[in-house]
Structure formats: structure tokens, C-alpha cells
């Protein structure tokens, strides 16, 4: 059982959360211009990183807010919790080979005209990293 530090509610059992898969997957900027290959990439291809992985979680039985988490997929150690819409904390350090989407815009925005649902007003300005965070 993971003990997940929700940015709004604090540490809670994993059973209160839903997993949202890879973080930082932006909706295509120009959907009409995508070919089949590019659509396949957006719909079906996600990083399957062995190691530090940026992923989305929903605190579904708590504050019902989405947030991002950096977690090691081998040790399951949670390395950082950070708000939607912000860059992954280790992006600068791990730029060359740690996944292609690490610096991409956030995934929850559905294009430039969509309402901004990524930054929640309840999220503290600086989210403290959970205990054991390495970054």
C-alpha cells in the first residue's frame, strides 16, 4: 500500500486515490493536422519508464483534486508531489534521457482556449515534498 501525500489533505492510503497514468501528455495543439501515426502516439503510446516516472493521481475520496507525483517504478518510492501545470521537479537534472515528455506542457489543459483546470486554488503555492523525497 502506498502512503501518498496529497497536496491538500496530507498523507492518505493509496486506496483513497485513483491512478491517472503518465503526466505531462499535452492534448495535440492542432488536432486536425495530426496523421494516424501521431494520433496513435497520443491515444495509445505512453512512456513506460523503469525508474523515476512522472504520473497523475486523483484524490478521489478526499479533495477530488488531481496532482502530479514523481515515483520510482521499481522501488515505488515517492520522490515528489507537485501541482498540475508545473514542470516535473527533476526535469533539469534528468533532461537528457529521462523520458521525452518531461518538459512538455501539462496534460490536463485541452488546448489554449480551454478553461484552466490544472492550477487549483486550494493547492498551496509551494507544495512541500513528502518525507523521503530526494528532489
Amino acid at each position, binding site marked *: 500500500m502506498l502512503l501518498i501525500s496529497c497536496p491538500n489533505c496530507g498523507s492518505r492510503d493509496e486506496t483513497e486515490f485513483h491512478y491517472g497514468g503518465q503526466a505531462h501528455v499535452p492534448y495535440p495543439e492542432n488536432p486536425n493536422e495530426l496523421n*494516424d501515426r501521431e494520433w496513435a502516439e497520443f491515444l495509445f503510446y*505512453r512512456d*513506460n519508464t523503469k525508474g523515476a516516472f512522472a504520473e497523475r493521481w486523483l484524490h478521489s475520496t478526499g479533495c477530488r483534486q488531481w496532482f502530479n507525483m514523481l515515483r520510482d*517504478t521499481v522501488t*515505488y518510492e515517492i520522490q515528489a508531489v507537485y501541482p498540475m501545470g508545473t514542470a516535473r521537479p527533476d526535469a533539469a537534472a534528468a533532461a537528457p534521457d529521462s523520458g521525452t515528455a518531461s518538459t512538455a506542457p501539462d496534460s490536463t489543459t485541452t488546448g489554449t482556449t480551454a478553461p484552466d483546470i490544472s492550477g487549483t486554488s486550494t493547492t498551496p503555492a509551494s507544495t512541500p515534498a513528502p518525507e523521503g523525497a530526494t528532489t
Partner: protein
Amino acid sequence: MADLLPEHPEFLWHNPTPKKSYDAVIVGGGGHGLATAYFLAKNHGMTNIAVLEKGWLAGGNMARNTTIIRSNYLWDESAAIYEHALKLWEILPEELEYDFLFSQRGVMNLAHTLGDVRESMRRVGANKLNGVDAEWLDPQQVKELCPILNISDNIRYPVMGATYQPRAGIAKHDHVAWAFARKCDELGVDIIQNCEVTGFLKDGNRVVGVKTSQGTIHTEKVGLCAAGHSSVLAEMAGFRLPIQSHPLQALVSELHEPVHPTVVMSNHVHVYVSQAHKGELVMGAGVDSYNGYGQRGSFHVIEHQMAAAVELFPIFARAHVLRTWGGIVDTTLDASPIVGTTPVDNMFVNCGWGTGGFKGTPAAGLTFAHTIATGTPHELNRPFALERFETGALIDEHGAAAVAH
């Protein structure tokens, strides 16, 4: 008394040092890799080949599955490949000259809701049209086949019936791997354990070799059979796979007298149960939600699974859990495998079998060997090409295939 297991020969395969080059290299010495090597040697005369295994032979998902074999899938493409696998399971003990205790004790897939009932009846119809043995059982018939099942209607998820495939069953997973390994060895295949692949040599877009912890091996062709680590290998080779690796947990109880005559699966409450030959109750769960390469999952998944098992089988309430474990399953978004060519020339991939790879072992081996040897897919695996994610011709077995996801 529970069944006694057969004695094994003194040794089953050699442990050769890798040669400088091979006609083909299979990455992954689990069931699928060994079956692929076997069919490459037997059906295509390719005996100058090697199976590379980073750990010990069949120590990954092949050692961690719940050994259920069935072919009652909904869609034509799936029914074809899994039914072919089942037919191979029926002849392989003789062909491999190894009794791996394939026991056709039947598999029941329970229905707990009206939706389940409708889906199940539809699947029975589809199975019959595809020549797969299938029948619909009402709760009383369920009880007759498996007397220890609780079919009362005052439980959270009452049993409203079940589909039943009489030819389905279980086999002894380790013995299956050893059976293939011994035949591979006899046919001249090099099985190389403790040999981790660390990279690939390419000439332009063509793979020409494999970098390993035991040195560089040149090869004409590479077949990837690495299940949960397929994405890691693909990344080394320079392409992506639409795979997500999840923990999948299972457990066994202490040994008991035979009480459970068949295999019971419940898609809805996420548990599947059989009793192994030695007497332990073998139970599997649904996947853990998060991505993971840790070969372990979260305990609440097991708790959930046990709650379901005890409600369905009240006599299990006092059984003790002996051991729990996890494997790394390679899931696709349509819950169907990927067997075919890759964007890299002469490199082929067999992955995405997710939670159901064991049952597919013989067909994976047969079709993947054909694909590697000829460069084009076998009729059975043609629909399972990587390209389907671009064309949209998905084989959507999610929720359709009696799969406990």
C-alpha cells in the same frame, strides 16, 4: 490424496557460453521465448539460435502466473489464436515427451450482475460460432460442478450463472518451461541464463547484434519475448511500444485435500481460484493500478481479492495464506497481445499478453517463430500487429473476454 508430481530427469538443458553469432536471438527465457525457440527449430529448421535470459530460466512471469488455460475469448481474432493454443496444449505433452500435468478440469467464469449475464451469454454464442466449447450454466448447475461455491442470493455479488469451458484447465507452469527447454536443448538451441541484454547493434535501421552482460553477440534476427520489460528493450532499440507494465499479484494457501474440482474466475469481483495438483489453493487478483517493475504490489489488492474469495467460497475462510508474490504484466489498451514486426528491420516483438500470457504460450511461440523465420506474420497473429494502434483495428477484449482486469 493430492496428486504426486512426476520425477524429473537429472538435467534438462546445458548451460553453454554464448557463441559469437547466431541466426536468431530470442530475448527472454520464459515460456514464450522457449516456445518460440522450440518452434523455430522444429518448424523452420533454425537451430543455430540462442535464448538469452537475464535471470534464471522461466523465473519471471512464467514462475508467477496462476496457470489457467482457456480460449473462451469474445472476438474472432482472439478466439482463433487462443483456441489454437488450447489445441496445442492438448498435444504438447506427447510432442514434448513431458507430462506437465495439463488438467482439463474446465473453467467457469461467474456472472454476478444482469450485465455479466448478458455479456456471458453473448460470449457463449460467439464461442460456439468459433468452434470453442462453451456453455451457459444456471446457478444450480454451477453448484453441481463446484459444490463449494456459495450460490445463495444474500451475498454482495450473488452468482447468477456462469459460462463454462470444459476443455479449459490448468498446467504445471514450471514443467511447461522445462519441457520446452529440454526439447530446445535437444534440437541444438543455446539457452543462456544470467545474460542480460544491455543494448542492440544496428546497421542503419537493421539490427545486427545484441550487447549483453556476457559480451556482444551478432545475429541476423532478434525476437523480443520480455513481457513486462518489453518497453525497456524497445527503447534500447529505438522505438516505442504501447505497453504499460503493472504489478499483478497472486497467492497460494497451504496444502489442502482436494476440494475444488474446477477453475472459477470472477471478472466482477476480481478473483480467480483453482487448486493445484499438490493441493494448494491458487488465487489471482486484478492488476495494481499503477505502473510498476517491482514484482510486488499493494496489499489492499490482495485483501480485496481475499474478501471476494471468502464470500464465494466460505470454506476458504480458515485457509492460511502461504505465500504471495507479484509479476510484471505488459498491458495494452485493448487487452490483446502484440505479435509481429517492429519499426526496426529484422527485429520482432511478442508482448502485450498482459494478464493472460501463460495460456497463450504455445500459440505465441508458434506464430512468433513463423514471423521471425519468414519475416511475415502467421495468419493467427496477423491481426495482432503493432500497426493496429494506427489503423484503429483494435481487438478490444477489455471487459469482453472474461478477463479479470
